[in-house]
């Protein structure tokens, strides 16, 4: 199949959706300047013009709110925040307005907006330029949150997000942008709320999303050489989350490790651990492990960045730790 980079897969989704649906437009900072949003906006301005590709002032709150308003009356806007840290000024239109609208007005209107936030970290840019804040949005009823890890899903989920009648938070990671993969040339969708097994395995279930899937695959490869057979699940959507896929896998392996690029406390990994513990606790042979950021802001110095971001090594360590414990502590207790 044709190969495309992650960022150009997004670019293709935007081109095709804007061509096929006149209500779709792209708005945000830097959309006219290809270097600022990677090359995800390449050629859009030239093709669709300033009415549909709108480069905005530094006004995240008003621009996102305006997209919500436009979505309410007939448009399908895509608002891009080239760095999701700056999206915090848009919390009101996202959380108070978009997320609540359909419910609050008794289901009589809807807000089909895509709010696209890019995780852009590393490179010693420090705490205000490094955050992976997906869990904040996944907490909010009324929002859907998708996090692709492959070029195929990057395109397919963007298309699904645009077509969805609900506000969808589309979150991607700059660290994925150069990855190449199979991408069909036609328009296709990847269902929101459906995860996928990236690698089958029987010893332990490893759940992750977005860039952490890359590290998870690396970890599973390293462990394979040591005879440990990991099943890797790519969530693709973190809300709604594909519970059944996780449950099926954990029932098979009896062990769960979650790798997340966000913080540990109250985060995505915590949620997955909770739903597994709530629903299939008896299937677990050992405690659940989380591989996440430590609960501290992002540091600038390379010396600190090196230990800050979770990677395949951390995942390998977590899985080994989990497999080295003979039984879950509560099982030992119940035996004695």
């Amino acid at each position: 199949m044709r190969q495309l980079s992650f960022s150009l897969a997004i670019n293709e989704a935007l081109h095709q959706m804007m061509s096929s649906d006149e209500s779709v437009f792209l708005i945000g900072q830097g959309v006219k300047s290809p270097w600022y949003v990677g090359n995800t906006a390449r050629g859009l301005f030239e093709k669709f013009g300033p009415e549909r590709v709108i480069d905005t002032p530094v006004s995240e709150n008003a621009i996102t709110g305006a997209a919500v308003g436009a979505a309410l009356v007939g448009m399908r806007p895509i608002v891009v925040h080239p760095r999701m840290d700056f999206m915090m000024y848009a919390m009101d239109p996202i959380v108070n307005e978009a997320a609540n609208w359909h419910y609050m007005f008794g289901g009589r209107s809807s807000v089909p907006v895509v709010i696209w936030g890019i995780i852009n970290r590393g490179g010693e840019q420090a705490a205000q330029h490094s955050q992976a804040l997906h869990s904040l949005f996944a907490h909010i009823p009324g929002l859907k949150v998708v996090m692709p890890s492959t070029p195929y899903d990057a395109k397919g989920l963007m298309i699904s997000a645009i077509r969805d009648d609900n506000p969808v938070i589309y979150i991607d990671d700059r660290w994925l942008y150069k990855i190449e993969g199979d991408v069909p040339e036609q328009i296709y969708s990847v269902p929101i709320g459906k995860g996928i097994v990236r690698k089958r395995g029987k010893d332990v279930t490893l759940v992750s999303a977005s860039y952490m899937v890359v590290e998870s695959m690396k970890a599973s490869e390293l462990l394979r050489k040591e005879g440990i057979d990991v099943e890797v699940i790519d969530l693709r959507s973190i809300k709604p989350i594909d519970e059944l896929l996780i449950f099926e896998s954990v029932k098979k392996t009896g062990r769960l490790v979650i790798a997340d690029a966000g913080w540990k406390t109250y985060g995505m990994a915590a949620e997955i651990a909770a739903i597994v513990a709530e629903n299939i606790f008896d299937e677990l042979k050992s405690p659940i492990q989380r591989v996440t950021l430590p609960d501290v802001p992002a540091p600038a110095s390379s010396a600190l960045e090196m230990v800050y971001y979770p990677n395949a090594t951390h995942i390998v360590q977590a899985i080994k730790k989990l497999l080295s414990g003979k039984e879950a502590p509560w099982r030992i207790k119940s035996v004695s």
Partner: protein
Amino acid sequence: MGITKQKAIELYSVMVKIRMFEEQVQDLYARGMIPGLAHLYIGEEAVAAGVCGALEREDYITSTHRGHGHVIAKGADVRYMMAELFGKTTGYCKGKGGSMHIADMAMGILGANGIAGGGLPIAVGAAFSAKYRNSGQIVACFFGDGSSNNGTFHESLNFASLHKLPVIFVCENNLYGISVSQRMHQPIQDIAIRATSYDMPGVVVDGNDAVAVYEASLKAVKRARAGEGPTLIECKTYRWRGHHEGDPNLGARYRDREEIEQWKKRCPIKRLEGRLLEERWLSRRKMEEIQKAIAQELDEAVSFAQQSPYPAPGDIFTDVYVAG
């Protein structure tokens, strides 16, 4: 009210120091020795020098992503700045902040901010505190033309004026927010006119004229200290480098080379040099001495930074909360 000889020499020295610091950073960045995002202030030195020249040591400033000039003008130590840029543990923020985040509470430097428009409310709050404590301090708040479109600008000006807070809003209009020209991001030319909506004086000054910036700031300082409230000062200026180091061709992808060259002819340092020579306040020889002394100070700063240790891995967990 003219500028004194002593003040003029001070502004000159500050501008030269900023320029030379930034040129040093530019060089270190090009050689791969400084990472991260370095947004240089070259070309805009008169703004920081003029504004901070009108402040007292006890006064506060808030700064931006393009903050090296502001903090040098307010008295930051270039050794700790350089160490911070290198990500060393001896830096102002122990290597946790980097280029965009220099703070020195002892010098009233409340912190450079990576969020465009993030500093405005913080300046207002500091001014509120100064007023509440009756301390006589004032706050100078730096921000760019691009950031003046953030809601924080409007909300902050309104609140500060409503409460007659001792703050000076200093808009550095360098005609661009990243690659977006002012024409493309706001329908007005003079951001200062927005002061009218908030019932405060709005002044436009030549931001490449340190003396003009200084004099406008003095007036605003006086007004603020007298309890009469805030002022908005718009300084028209230009950045010579790209948005940050690594922005190719000095940003020539979105602005004319001709435009860049024109602005370079209006070098704020050359301009004050002219005045200093004309008034016979400072000879060429004395200027060279000043430059030499600064060069030495910067050399020492670089050595200090290079010789300093990196933070230990465990330091990642320190300073998340105030201890105790």
